[in-house]
């Protein structure tokens, strides 16, 4: 009897919480008043940012976001009615394009000769597609079947790209064979490294990749999501070091200023709907975890991270704008639009 009440009471609140993403006034107000995060990086939440008429501009998974040179926020979704949705910073719709990216997943922006270009990875087309900012296809990087690593295109499911200063392109095959593919600016495949495994130079879910030049020289930061690690490699593919993030199933690293921002899609023991945001400082120490547990180091090692407040479901990417505000795109979260976090 006692247990039945125990379960009954907590399940009542579970049912109540299911309405989280179907926001009523009270919840919206409470979220607006809440400050999340720790230390220098604290935020207020706007759950309504970017919400559109889903019958006109629908989303499935909101996978990644970037800010373009005009200050606009570019969202990539795998809904082929409008794969790319461009907003202003207030969340007003500016334009949409893209109907040919069923597996739209990774979105990187690179400025070349003063023009913005997007690199879209498509896990279903098994390719990376470079486009102009308004959607004109410039180049397609298909599965490199002429390398010895791939026998058929289905083995290749690229999740992310990073572009170095010299124009070299690095592709993370995060849902495929876990290789990192290194192309020159002309699109010639130079080198393949990584691969599936538990060694330091291997990956289990090489989901994201970025160029880190915070210390003056370029290196690669690559996600090993199921290993709860960021792995640092030289641009030539030599493993250099690891950053352990126990309990954090991180998506891609996003460098803004001196900090690294990461959407954490699952946490703790990997339960569904257990996501939060992770922010590392210039020494790669966790400084803030909005909706996650307080950063705690014991004997120099980060203790296990986990979600504390159920605000996010499955954060998949963080975009940091020029005012230090965050935009959080979510995977498998009820076809919801991105969430904006205002720095306080």
């Amino acid at each position, binding site marked *: 009897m006692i247990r039945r009440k125990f379960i009954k009471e*907590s*399940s009542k609140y579970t049912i109540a919480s299911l309405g989280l993403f179907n926001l009523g006034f009270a919840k919206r107000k409470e979220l607006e008043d809440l400050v999340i995060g720790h230390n220098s990086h604290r935020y207020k939440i706007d759950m309504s940012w970017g919400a559109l008429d889903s019958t006109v501009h629908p989303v499935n998974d909101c996978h990644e976001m970037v800010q373009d040179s005009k200050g606009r926020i570019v969202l990539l979704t795998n809904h082929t009615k409008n794969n790319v949705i461009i907003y202003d910073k207030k969340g007003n719709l500016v334009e949409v394009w893209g109907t040919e990216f069923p597996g739209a997943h990774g979105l990187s922006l690179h400025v070349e000769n003063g023009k913005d270009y997007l690199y879209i990875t498509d896990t279903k087309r098994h390719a990376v597609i470079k486009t102009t900012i308004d959607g004109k296809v410039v180049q397609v990087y298909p599965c490199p079947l002429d390398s010895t690593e791939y026998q058929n295109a289905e083995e290749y499911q690229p999740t992310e790209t990073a572009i170095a200063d010299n124009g070299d392109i690095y592709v993370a095959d995060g849902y495929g064979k876990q290789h990192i593919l290194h192309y020159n600016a002309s699109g010639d495949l130079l080198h393949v490294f990584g691969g599936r495994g538990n060694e330091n130079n291997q990956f289990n879910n090489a989901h994201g990749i970025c160029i880190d030049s915070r210390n003056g020289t370029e290196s690669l930061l690559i996600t090993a999501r199921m290993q709860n690690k960021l792995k640092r490699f030289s641009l030539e593919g030599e493993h250099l070091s690891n950053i352990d993030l126990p309990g954090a199933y991180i998506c891609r690293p996003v460098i803004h200023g001196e900090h690294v921002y990461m959407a954490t899609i699952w946490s703790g023991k990997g339960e569904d709907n257990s996501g939060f945001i992770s922010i590392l400082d210039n020494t790669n120490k966790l400084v803030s975890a909005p909706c996650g547990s307080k950063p705690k180091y014991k004997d120099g090692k980060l203790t296990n991270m986990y979600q504390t407040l159920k605000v996010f479901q499955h954060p998949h990417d963080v975009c940091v704008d020029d005012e230090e505000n965050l935009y959080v795109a979510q995977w498998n979260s009820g076809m919801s639009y991105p969430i904006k976090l205002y720095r306080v």
Partner: protein
Amino acid sequence: MKSMLLLFLLVFASCSNKVLTENRMQNFNGVDFLQTGSNESATIQLNMPQYTIDSMLFINQATLELEFDYPNADIYYSINDGLALKCLSKITTNSSCTIDFYSKATGFLPSETQSLTLIKVQNDISEANISVSHPPNDRYTSDGTKSLIDLKKGGINFRDGNYWLGFQSQDLIITLDLEKAIPMEILTLSLLKDHGAWIFLPQEITVTDGDSIVGNKKIIASNTEQQAALEFIDIKIEARVYQRLAINIKSMAAIPSWHVGVGTPPWLFIDEIIVE
């Protein structure tokens, strides 16, 4: 205008009743179970406490540690439907039990309740020969079939591939060949249910000794999405001595219509077999 006022009064009255009901539940068995007041209007929910346990399957004793680091948050737990207590230290048990726990803080909804079943194992069958009718998926092989009898229990996180064997086929037959015959009356399968990851419980389990059916259990399929959970499924078998048993696990042919994965084969995840 009058009808709007009436509607407002009705809503107000219904809210007031709710407050009274919950106020009465304070001091429930001496424990301040639900903090009303500020929590009454709360809409943001806490996550469940994190747990670490030395072993959910144990020979002598098991120790559970709970953690939830959020300002002014407490953890409550109960053992075997007993009194709910505030968790202040590690929890140790030397007998099989179920422990429920959740987190609570003023101004927030309490977390969902996590329920853990800890089992004191009577028979160590780790030296048995065990085989499966077809191999698990490459991503979920653990350390092979022996991991089904190694007394190492997997957690909710099946993705690390460390404990669970994952199958995506309708029928699986596991054959267990013990070193010597032992008396048995219950065979328990440790399974994972995680509808969000398309992992479902099977619909029927049949245990045979040679050509004889010695135990059978049908599992009623849920018709709504449920929270991910570790499940121990007991199959009562004819009480006698056994040395070789076959366990036929029949999964649903396809994921049911209420689920986004409708029509595709569900996953079956198993990590331990226990005999008593």
